[in-house]
Structure formats: structure tokens, C-alpha cells
């Protein structure tokens, strides 16, 4: 990492330091241009023996295993495994719903202004308070961390934003300047409008030249059938897909409110509810919805992960990488 790197909101070296020894690898074989550390369907010249095959005229004479010819009087060509570099594509949902930062950012619920002032006077904080984290921020921070790990292991990482389809698509590259370009791009995007995640996945599939990984960071406020259809098509081409279902803590557990009008961030639709009255039923339905996504995605071989903004992104990512490493 260059020493003169500009500070990024989504790339904090201090938080990423514990992740340096981890390797982000694909569970499937990848196809790359250059030799790397990832398994590839191509045969190459690595030290790892793979198989023998009969000699056919035209094969290089240097690849004939002469020791076997001496024992069996037959010509065999010795095959070796080929290890290639990996291409990781990051797709971050930048719909309006991903901009939700919680009730505190709106001045609703929790401690009122006077109480916060009083508490601040009694327990002064040496640092300025951090603004609440939105789902988009959390997703970008995770994506930037993955990009950092991928770049660090000399693989390529690409990026795209799901905002009314695929936007700001950046071709994969494996350099640190590329990484900073990605983080700069993340910071420049403001969540708004619908994501149209299915269209974004379709577009990403068209741009992916080689087999690689697609990491989707989204709250999945989409039509499941359309998303699943797009993922089916993507995966049919041999890609691996990992979904980070990013939800705010307020979505998983409704905030402490008496009665309120809830306005949909994307459609503007309003619903009047007494939170305490609907909490139990909401929790049940939310659990059912999460289970449905998990069931649908894992059934298609998609690695599904539920991420809450209540969990710091680096902890969530480290937990995921540990669990992934145990399965490989």
C-alpha cells in the first residue's frame, strides 16, 4: 500500500489490520490471465502433478515423461495443474432504502436533545461523535475491505453500483490506485431511487469475461423472482455469488416508538402503526422473510450472509471469512 494514500471514509487501515492474514478465495475454479494462487481449470506448468495422457503427434517433446517410456515403452505426456489469478466483482446496492441511518439521525426516539446535552456535559467525549452509519456506508465499508484483501493477494477487483440498474461500473484491476479509485467512487455515490438489482446483475454478467466472484451488498428490497432469475443466469456462466444481506438494526427489531407514521424511503407510501402493537407480528414476518431469502439463495448455491449495521463491518467480515475458510 502506498504510503501517501489519501484517507478514505470506507478504508480504515487500523480496522483492516487484523484481516491481513486472511485470504479471500473462491470456492470454485477461476480463470485468469496470469498465474496466481487460485485453482484454475487450465493446465499449466506448476509443480503440482495433475495427470498423464497419451502422446499425440505435435505435442512438445519436452513434455514427454521419458522415465515412463523407459519402463513401459509408451509415450505419455505429463500434465500439471494451472493456478490462475482471481477476479472479484463487487456490486453495492445504492437505492434510497440503503441510505437509512436509523431514527437517531432523524431526531426521533431515544434521548431528546436536552438529555443528550446534559449527558455530554457529564461525560465529555474527546472525539467528535460519529454520524450514524447507513446501510450503504456499512455495505461500502465491507466492499472496500474485500477489495483491499483481494488487491493485497494480487487478484483483481471490479466494482459496480446498483442504482436504477448497474451504474459506475469499473473493470477489474489489481492495483492499489485502482482500489483508491473504487473507494472514491463509493464515496461519490448517494443512495437514491430504486436499485433494480436484477438489471444490475444482468449487466454485470455481460461485463464479466472470466469466471470469478460476484459479491452483492444489498438489503434485497427487490422482487425475489427477478433477482433469482438474474443470479441463475450469472451463475450458469460459472461464477460464484456471495450475497451480503445488509439490514439496519431498526429493520431487524423495530425501534422503541409509541405511534408513528412510517414512510417508505423509495415509494413514499405511508403506514400508521403503533410499534408496540405490531412488534411481535413484524418480528415474525421479518424472520420469515429472511428465512425465505436464505432458503432461496442457498438452494441455488449462493453464499447468503445476513449483516446487521449493529455489527461493525470488520467484525462481520472477519466472521464471514473464518466461516468460509472452515468450509473450503
Amino acid at each position, binding site marked *: 500500500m502506498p504510503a501517501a494514500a489519501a484517507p478514505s471514509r470506507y478504508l480504515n487501515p487500523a480496522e483492516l489490520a487484523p484481516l491481513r492474514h486472511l485470504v479471500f478465495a473462491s470456492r470454485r475454479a477461476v480463470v485468469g490471465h496470469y498465474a496466481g494462487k487460485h485453482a484454475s481449470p487450465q493446465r499449466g506448468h506448476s509443480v503440482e502433478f495433475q495427470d498423464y495422457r497419451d502422446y499425440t503427434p505435435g505435442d512438445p517433446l519436452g513434455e514427454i515423461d521419458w522415465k515412463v517410456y523407459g519402463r513401459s515403452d509408451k509415450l505419455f505426456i505429463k500434465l500439471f495443474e494451472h493456478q490462475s489469478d482471481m477476479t472479484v466483482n463487487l456490486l453495492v446496492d445504492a437505492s434510497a*432504502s*440503503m441510505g*437509512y441511518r436509523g*431514527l437517531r439521525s*432523524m431526531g*426521533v*426516539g431515544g434521548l431528546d436533545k436536552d438529555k443528550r446535552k446534559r449527558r455530554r456535559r457529564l461525560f465529555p467525549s474527546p472525539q467528535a461523535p460519529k454520524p450514524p452509519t447507513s*446501510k450503504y456506508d456499512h455495505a461500502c465499508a465491507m466492499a472496500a475491505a474485500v477489495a483491499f484483501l483481494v488487491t493485497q493477494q494480487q487478484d483483481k477487483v471490479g466494482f459496480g453500483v446498483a442504482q436504477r440498474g448497474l451504474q459506475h461500473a469499473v473493470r477489474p484491476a489489481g492495483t492499489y490506485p485502482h482500489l483508491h479509485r473504487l473507494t472514491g467512487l463509493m464515496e461519490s455515490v448517494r443512495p437514491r431511487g430504486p436499485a433494480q438489482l436484477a438489471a444490475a446483475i444482468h449487466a454485470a454478467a455481460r461485463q464479466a469475461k472470466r469466471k470469478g466472484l460476484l459479491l452483492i451488498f444489498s*438489503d434485497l*428490497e427487490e422482487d425475489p423472482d427477478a433477482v433469482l432469475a438474474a443470479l441463475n443466469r450469472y451463475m450458469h456462466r460459472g461464477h460464484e455469488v456471495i450475497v451480503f444481506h445488509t439490514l*439496519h438494526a*431498526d*429493520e431487524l427489531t423495530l*425501534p422503541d*416508538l409509541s*405511534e*408513528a*407514521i*412510517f*414512510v*417508505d*424511503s*423509495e415509494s413514499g*407510501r*405511508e*403506514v*400508521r*402503526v*403503533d410499534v*408496540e*402493537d*405490531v412488534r411481535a*407480528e*413484524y418480528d415474525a*414476518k*421479518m424472520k420469515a*422473510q429472511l428465512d425465505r431469502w436464505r432458503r432461496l439463495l442457498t438452494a441455488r448455491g449462493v453464499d447468503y450472509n445476513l449483516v446487521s449495521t449493529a455489527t461493525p463491518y470488520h467484525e462481520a467480515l472477519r466472521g464471514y471469512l473464518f466461516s468460509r475458510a472452515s468450509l473450503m
Partner: protein
Amino acid sequence: MNALAFISLTSPIMLLGAALVALPIAAHLLNRKARQRVVFPSVALLSSVSASQSSFFKLRRWLLLLLRCAAVVLVVLAFVRPVWLNPASSTAATGTTSGDTAAVVVVLDVSASTRQILGDGQTAADRLRAQAVRELGQLRPGTDYANVVFADANPAAVFDVLTRNVAALRLAVEAATPSDHRADLAGAMSLASQLLADHDQPDAARHLLVLTDGQRTNWDELGDAQLPRDVQLIVQTVGNDNTAAANTALGSPESRPGRPGVGVPTELSVEVAHFSDTPTRVRIDLLIDDQEVDSQWVRLTANQRKRVSFTRRFESAGQHRIKYRIESDDALALDNTAAQVVDCVRRRPVIVVGDANPDQPGTAGYYVTRALAPHNGDRDRFLVTHLASTSVRGDALAGTSLVIVGDVDRLDRVAEATLTRYVEDGGACLLLAGNRPARSDALLPWQLIAQGSGGKAVDGEWEAAELTGFSVEAQDTLARTALGRVWRVSNLLPEARVLLRNDRGEPVLAGRPVGDGRVVAAAFSPSGDTGDLGKYGVFVVLMQSLAERLTTRADTRRPDFPGRPIQIAAADAVDPRGPAHRIETPDGQTAAGVVFGLDSGTASAVATVPVSDRAGFYTWRQGPATLGQAAVNIDPRESDLRELPSEALASTLEQKGVATASVNGIGDGGEALRFGGAGLWGWMLMGALGLLCVEMGLLGGWRR
């Protein structure tokens, strides 16, 4: 609506508080409008959840609003203090409908008998007072008028007119204490009736409530109480189960003689009365000057009265405090003591009435004085003073033990009336018939006919009290002594007793009772112009014997009872330059309104206490010195605690012309006055609390 007619609002102005209902309504409306707006990532789940509950939520909000409004209304109504006027009781018991104004006077018996302890350990006064407070509490504040008359010997009302300030009346009743008086129920009821008649609201229903211990002796002697016919009379007694509590009482102390001499045997007696159906045995202690000197055990049968006597000799002259005491756990402790003041004199006063000069030898006054006071000093047993017949006026004879009428020119009508009144009030008189005898038909036991030779008194009723001092030798000497000129008499009165007869059998000395006193008349005289009787020693014996017996009359002064004025005569000389005078009451206080003056008859200082409130000794003090004392005992009729049955009491009231009277016990019918009805505010508050509890329960349930 008929039911609403029997609900009275005590503070209708508080209905303005109903505007507070706007608070929950405003809160309801504000809650709807001020609902928070939250921009949420997706409301798809929320809308699916809330859709199924929206109608229930609306119903729930309305239900909560209804509960809160009802709670506010109930709290406001509680402050209005509604009263449920039970239609059955308010009209039947008092004849008053809910809309009428009532005028009530409560006559509260505070006589000495209300100090009796009832079966439950409470005094009758406490129970009557509590009932009075309870009855006053039934009045409707701001509507009904009332007053309270305390029935003791001098009935008095708390206010001059009926008032709506019931709170002040209740305070006065709570502060009232039973007196030592005998209740003047007739006077109290008359005063109450007058208060009701003077009440300036003609339409008001008038009620007279008498709270009494129902003492038989009180109601049997109700007198001529005037009760208007338009007043409804309600009498409530303590209702002590119609069984009189056992009581043993002391009363009517007497001393004989009334003013004993120093060293003279004096009979001190007290009447002990036992009001119970079971016999008892009590010990009576006698205390003289606060020292217990004697005691006697007395056995008393059911409802028996007995006079118990002690014989004592006083060693010094002056006033002595005599106190009789019994130790008894009876119902009334006040009458377990009786007080008496005995004025012990060194020489018994005797007045000789005569128009002749007593210093001139030969006159009747001369010989009588020589016979009764031969030493003319303190060694004599009698103090003889002389009085002309024209000076026998007014209180000239007050305080004297014996009056001897000797030679009088003419006993005029005033003097005769004064002498007669003196004797009738318990005095003793000896009439000597000289040449100018007093011819008083009111006093003489006979009629004097003519004067003649008297012979000798040979026959005598020597067992008679007047002659018990005569020894056999003295009788013989008298029989041999010529009486001189003696009046012949006729028309001897039947009640007269002949004490001496002459040798012709004619009565020469006779006695008769006159009123409470006694008269002894002699048909002879010691004066020198009738004979030489005055010169003989037997005349001295005769006079000493007669004077000794005639001056032993009892102290028959009218007894002093609490509630009446009393007079205290100064036994010692008053120092005009000494410290201030004061009358100390039995409870150590200083009596108010005392008038100090001079008795015109005896020329001695007298203090008059306008009202003696307590039984016991009243002491006239000038600085540390005690000038005089007087004893006050409760009226003996107060000791008879038997209650007049309700039927008899109602009959008594009917005889007095009371049209509508009800008599019952305090415990029988609860409150006699039921204008106030039952307060509903407690129920209102309970209802409001209940509604709030229901609301909290619903909220808790819905949250869960």
C-alpha cells in the same frame, strides 16, 4: 329522572370542572395529529402487519378516550360532593323532602347523671356528644339551620339564633363537658322552642332533637315546658338496655346541732342511697378537715336509703370541712362523696326578746340571762343577746340557736311574722308568759285565759327531750318551788305536748312543732312581778335544760346544688386592707362574677357566687387566709340513674301536647335527622380509580 331528584349536589359550582373533559379529548386529537413521521427503508412488512389491526386500533383508541373521559367526569363529580337523599328515610323519618330547608335545635343533656359509665365503658356524655356530632353531620351544609342548647341547670344556646355554621356547632358540641348540675330539661326545651319560633324562615321544617340519658327523675318532673305544635320532637336516649346501672350515692349531709359548740357532742349524718336490685355493703369514711377520723360499714338492701350518723366533738371553733366518702365501683363516681361545712361556735347564740331593761334585776330578761350566762364570759355555754320586740325584723334572728320571748309590751304583726318564719325555718323559741305575754296564736300551743296563782309544777313529762336534763333531785326541787302567778290556759292544740302540770293538773309548760322548728310555751315567767321563780336555782336548771335541748336543732339551711347561686359567710374578720379576695372553686379555679357584700341581718361579710358549677367546697380566700367556706353537693335526684321507658316518655310528651314525637334509643334507629343522605363522592372516586385501573390493564394487555 325520579332518582335524580333525590341527589343533592353539595358544591354545584364545582361542576365547572367538567370542562376538564376537554383534556383527554384534546390529548386524543393531538395524539392523532402529532404522530411522528419516520422515513423507513421499507414499509411493506409494516403495512401487511397493521392492515389486520387498524379497525381494532380505532376501536381501542375510542375505548381509551371513553375511559379517560369517564374517569375525569367521576373525579369532577366527586368534588361536587353529590349526596343521595334516600326518599324513604328522608320523608318518613323527618317529614322533610329533599328540597326543604330544615331548622333543627339539638338539646344536649349535660347534667351530672350523664357522667355515668355505660355498659361498654363509655360515659353517657360521650355517647350523647358523639350522637349530637353525628346528627349535625346529617344536616345539609348551606341549606339547613341549626343550634345547640346545653341542658344543665341554666340552659344556654351556642348561638342566639339558628345558624348555618354547622361546623362551629360541631366544635362546640365536641368541646362540651358534662356538668355537675341537674338538667333543667323543661327550660332547655322551652329555650329551644323559642329559638325555633324566632327562626325567620317560615317554610323551614322545624325539628327539636333532645339527646338525653332518659333519667326518670328528670322526665317525671318535666314541668310546664311549652312546645309549639309545629315542631317535631325527637327524643333519643342513651339506650342503656333499659337497665339502670347500679349506683350508690351519698347526699343530704346534716349536723345536729346545726352550729355546735366546742366540745359538744355533734351528730354528723349523711344519707346513703343504693339504686340497685341487689344488696350491697359499703364503707363510709368520715373526713374532718381532710383527715379521716371515722368510718362505718353499712349494709344496704335493694333500692334502700339509710341515714348514717357519726358523733364527734369539735375541739376548736370555726368552720370545719366535713366530707363523707365511699369506695364503690358504681356507675356514677360523682356522688360517692358528700361535702358539708359545719360552723362550730364557742358559745351558742341565744336572743332574748323583751321590752324591759334586761340589766334591771327582777325582769324576765335579767333572770334568763343570769340563768344561761352566769359568768358573762367564755366560760358560759350560751351567748345571750337582747333584742327589743320592735327590732324583730328581717334577718334579725338569723343564725341564732334559740329565741326566748320574755316581757313584751306588744308583739306587733311584723315581729310575730318574723318570729314565726324563724321557727318555721327550723328555729327554736321559748315563750314566757309574764304579766304582758305575747299572744301569738301562730306560735302558742294554747290560749291564755287569765292569770292566777300557779301552785307548783309537780307533774312532768320527764322523758320528753326538753326535760331530759332534769335529775330526780331537780324534779323534787321544782315540785317544791312556787311558780308564782301562772296563766290558765285553754284550747290546747292537739299536736301540743304538755311538759309540766301544776298541782291542779293544769298545763304550765307545753311544746309544739311549728314548721320545721319547735316552740315551747310556759304559762309562767321568772319576772319578779309574777313571783320568785327566777330567784331559785331550779329555774337555772330548767332554763339550761330547755336551752340545751332546743338549740340542738339540725342545720336546716337549704342545701346548695351546682348550678345555683351560693352565699359564703365570712367566719373570720375581713381585713379591708388585706390582699384581694377570691373564691376558689372545688377544682382550684377562681370563680367569676362573685359579689362581695354585707349581710344586713348579721352585719357579717358575705360573698355571693352567681353560679356554682362544681360539687365540693367553695373557699373564700384573702391571700393565704381562709375567710369562709361553703359546700355544694349534687342534687340527690341525679343519683337515681333509672331510665324512663320509651313508652312512658312518649306518654309524658303526649300529655304535654306534643303532636309528633318519637322516642328511641341512640343505638336503635341510627341517625334521627336524615336530611343529608349518603355521600356519593367516595363511590365516585372509587369509580374513577376503577376506570383508570381498567385502562392500565387494557394497555398492559394490548402491549403484551
